[in-house]
């Protein structure tokens, strides 16, 4: 029976990821040098590659600085409302990136909220500067998560205190103790930020494309969706495989697997945690940052969505729910249903696959499979979509099933990580105690292991559901007539220029995602409470 399970998991990995990627690399490899040279003739495609690398580099540097500083402020300083502040820093992570881009346009772009109120308009929101800024805002929490976790678990306050009472000043203690201990986390955070940035599609599509700024992902999109010549297809294949190789080698080099799995675990703070009475200004700076980068833009988007017409003052007298009615009544309603169905199907399937892999954890063959599932999350959505299209397009073109396959390939890692993390935290003694109390292996799993994992299983389902709900990169490459997802409809509406209805749909989507995230955080708190060792010290 176990062998059957391993075969099943291996087959799933092969069909979802292995076969499509093999098709992609095969197709790219068979293009021939002449075809590739022809496809990259001229500077446009090369400029897209340069823009992507430049964006990735700049965003990574900014995100590492910002994320590390934010982690130090919340974990070592004494900010007001620490747990709320943590949530505010993490907020950009749960707002779909293309919605964040839309909201920045509405807040700081021409005729945006700040323009209306103060007559201020940030130059270059539509353009490279805007793309870099919004991608940085999205990448900061990634670095923050990893570094804050390391500050809590690896660089315990006692280690810095030991340095201080050995005669080191605060700055010396930071340089000789804290920073060396954080180095692996910072490297992992940088790799995550870089990979996420070069893989990003929604933000450059919303803020870059209108200003003529093209990245690898938006180039793949325009070549695949709008161009019909064979050179465009060659470019798609080469860019997609190049992106896969780039991201996998960055992830492999930085070995982010451990960092990915760790999340925010606290070891408890001996001697009472942060020093009370530390400076408060870092917290104030962080609050201002969170308000300006997340809260204000989202507010602008909401106001656009509920104000009768563009150009009217966003005051209660001009408020209406009309745009929401139009949005749901038009293409939005059916697309919302499709997105919900897709997300639920993906979440349920991933849950089963994740549970299967967790059960195989200690079996031969289980570990490589788990590693593979984790790495697939780093494969760029654009490239994965192209690969899935090559592999299954001939049979499933323009169907929801095609999109579902891409979702499963991409999000398997997410669900697996959540489940395996919780299973790993569960002390083996709990199962041993059940066995020693007379329970057989199956009874132990049913009465002890599974009940304790339930919150984690619910969390895994919800994570995949949320990502599936707002996914845009793959669905915009794979959709056909009748299989548009909600995110695709929002992007297309925006291209047609229907700003208030776009905003209404984006608000609807974000509201659903935030609601789900609230549920998720409740589930993960329960999960940690149930599976963390209590040593009472």
């Amino acid at each position, binding site marked *: 029976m176990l062998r059957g399970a391993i075969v099943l998991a291996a087959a799933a990995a092969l069909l979802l990821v292995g076969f499509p990627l093999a098709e992609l690399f095969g197709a790219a490899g068979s293009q021939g040098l002449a075809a590739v040279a022809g496809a990259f003739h001229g500077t446009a495609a090369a400029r897209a590659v340069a823009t992507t690398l430049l964006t990735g580099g700049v965003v990574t540097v900014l995100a590492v600085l910002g994320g590390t500083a934010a982690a130090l402020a919340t974990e070592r300083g004494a900010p007001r409302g620490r747990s709320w502040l943590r949530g505010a820093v993490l907020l950009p992570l749960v707002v779909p990136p293309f919605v964040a881009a839309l909201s920045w346009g509405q807040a700081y772009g021409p005729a945006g909220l700040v323009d209306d109120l103060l007559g201020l308009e940030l130059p270059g929101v539509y353009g490279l500067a805007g793309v870099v800024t919004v991608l940085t805002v999205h990448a900061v929490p990634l670095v923050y998560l990893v570094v804050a976790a390391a500050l809590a678990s690896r660089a315990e306050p*006692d280690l810095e205190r030991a340095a*201080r*009472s*050995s005669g080191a000043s605060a700055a*010396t203690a930071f340089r000789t103790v804290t920073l060396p*201990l954080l180095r692996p986390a910072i490297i992992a955070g940088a790799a995550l930020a870089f990979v996420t940035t070069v893989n990003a599609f929604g933000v450059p599509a919303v803020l870059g494309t209108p200003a003529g700024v093209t990245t690898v992902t938006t180039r793949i999109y325009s070549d695949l969706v709008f161009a019909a010549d064979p050179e465009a297809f060659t470019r798609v294949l080469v860019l997609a495989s190049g992106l896969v190789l780039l991201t996998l080698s960055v992830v492999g080099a930085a070995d982010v697997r451990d960092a990915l799995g760790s999340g925010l675990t606290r070891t408890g703070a*001996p001697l*009472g*945690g942060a020093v009370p009475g530390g400076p408060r200004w870092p917290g104030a700076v962080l609050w201002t940052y969170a308000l300006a980068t997340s809260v204000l833009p989202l507010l602008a988007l909401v106001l656009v969505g509920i104000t009768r017409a563009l150009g009217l003052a966003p005051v209660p007298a001009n408020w209406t729910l009309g745009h929401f009615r139009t949005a749901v009544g038009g293409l939005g309603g059916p697309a919302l249903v499709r997105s919900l169905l897709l997300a639920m199907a993906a979440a349920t399937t991933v849950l089963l696959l994740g549970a299967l892999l967790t059960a195989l954890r200690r079996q031969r063959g289980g570990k490589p499979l788990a590693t593979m599932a984790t790495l697939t999350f780093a494969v760029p959505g654009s490239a994965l979509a192209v690969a899935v299209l090559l592999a299954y397009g001939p049979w499933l073109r323009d169907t929801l099933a095609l999109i579902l396959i891409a979702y499963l390939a991409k999000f398997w890692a997410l669900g697996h990580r959540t489940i395996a993390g919780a299973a790993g935290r569960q002390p083996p003694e709990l199962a041993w105690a059940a066995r020693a109390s007379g329970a057989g292996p199956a009874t132990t799993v049913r009465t002890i292991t599974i009940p304790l994992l339930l919150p984690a299983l619910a969390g895994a389902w919800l994570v995949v559901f949320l990502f599936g709900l707002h996914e845009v990169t793959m669905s915009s490459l794979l959709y056909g007539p009748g299989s548009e997802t909600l995110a695709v409809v929002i992007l297309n509406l925006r291209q047609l220029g229907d700003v208030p209805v776009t905003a209404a749909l984006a608000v609807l989507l974000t509201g659903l995602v935030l609601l789900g995230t609230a549920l998720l955080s409740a589930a993960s708190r329960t999960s940690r409470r149930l599976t963390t060792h209590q040593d009472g010290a």
Partner: protein
Amino acid sequence: MTSALTLRELTVAYGSEPVVRGVSLQVAPDEVVALLGPSGSGKSTLLAAVAGFIEPREGQVLLRGEVVSGPGHSVPPEDRDVAVVFQHYALWPHLTAAETVAYPLRRRGVGAGEARRAATALLARVGLGELAGRRPAELSGGQQQRVGLARALAREPSLYLFDEPTAHLDTALRASLTEELSEQRRLRGAAALYATHDAAEALAVADQVVLLREGRIAQIGRPAEVYEEPSDLWSAALTGPASVLDIPAGEAVSGKVTLRVGEETVRVPGGSAAGLRPADGAVLVRPEWAGLGGRLSGVVRQVRYRGPYTDYRLRTPAGTVDVRGAGTPSVAVGDAVTWDLQRVWISARS
């Protein structure tokens, strides 16, 4: 002579909840003071305030007569003349044992080569000469704490702060490490504040023992005083086993206490806590203050052989009493026996 450490009405709080409440204390140079209390009694917090890791809300900390913590004034930890040995060792995972011990020397401006030589010598003194090149992950708990001790020694402070240094070690290791700590400190002739929840450890290492209860000092005195003359039942239970006799004390005059046990009136050495009317107090008996044989009667309920001695639990006219006898058990459960008191102490009930 200036005290190594003086605390004046020290109050330390996390948020609004005070953890140390109005503690005043003096530690003479070359004196070891043990802070004895259950977990949550404020021991670690008090040490953290002395080390300068947290700022007190009220009161003062003085090191060698100089105010280092006071209202609106705080000397940072690196400028205080103290060294800390941490409960969880607090060894830096990225440094070897030698680099760890050299760290305080380097901060003091000692050159790299000399610091390395001095660190190796210190490690040899705590029995780790062979392991100087290892990182914490490659050392056992006892070895890790020896590295922590060597790091503190390298600091050459006038006051050591020990924060339950043996709490995470096996019993056998615990004894040898405790000995090592006291010996090394004695050689250096520095004062020490030693936090522990283990009464035997506190009584063995300290010149003075401070009993901490919910952030307040419950009792303070020499080890023999806090053990033999506990001020109340809580202090008595914290410092060791004791039975409470189910009878009132008659009177306590000139070092003798009169009691009525069943039909017998006994007059034994003892006394009562200051300011306490014997009739209001609880009559305490430590197991070694009573023994089998004598004019009192009882029935054996339980026999516990503990190696060097045996504890017997007796049912007597004065309630349940634990008495101790040397060697192996001499009577069995159910036997009617006689017993006697050598000493009692009358302490407050709460």
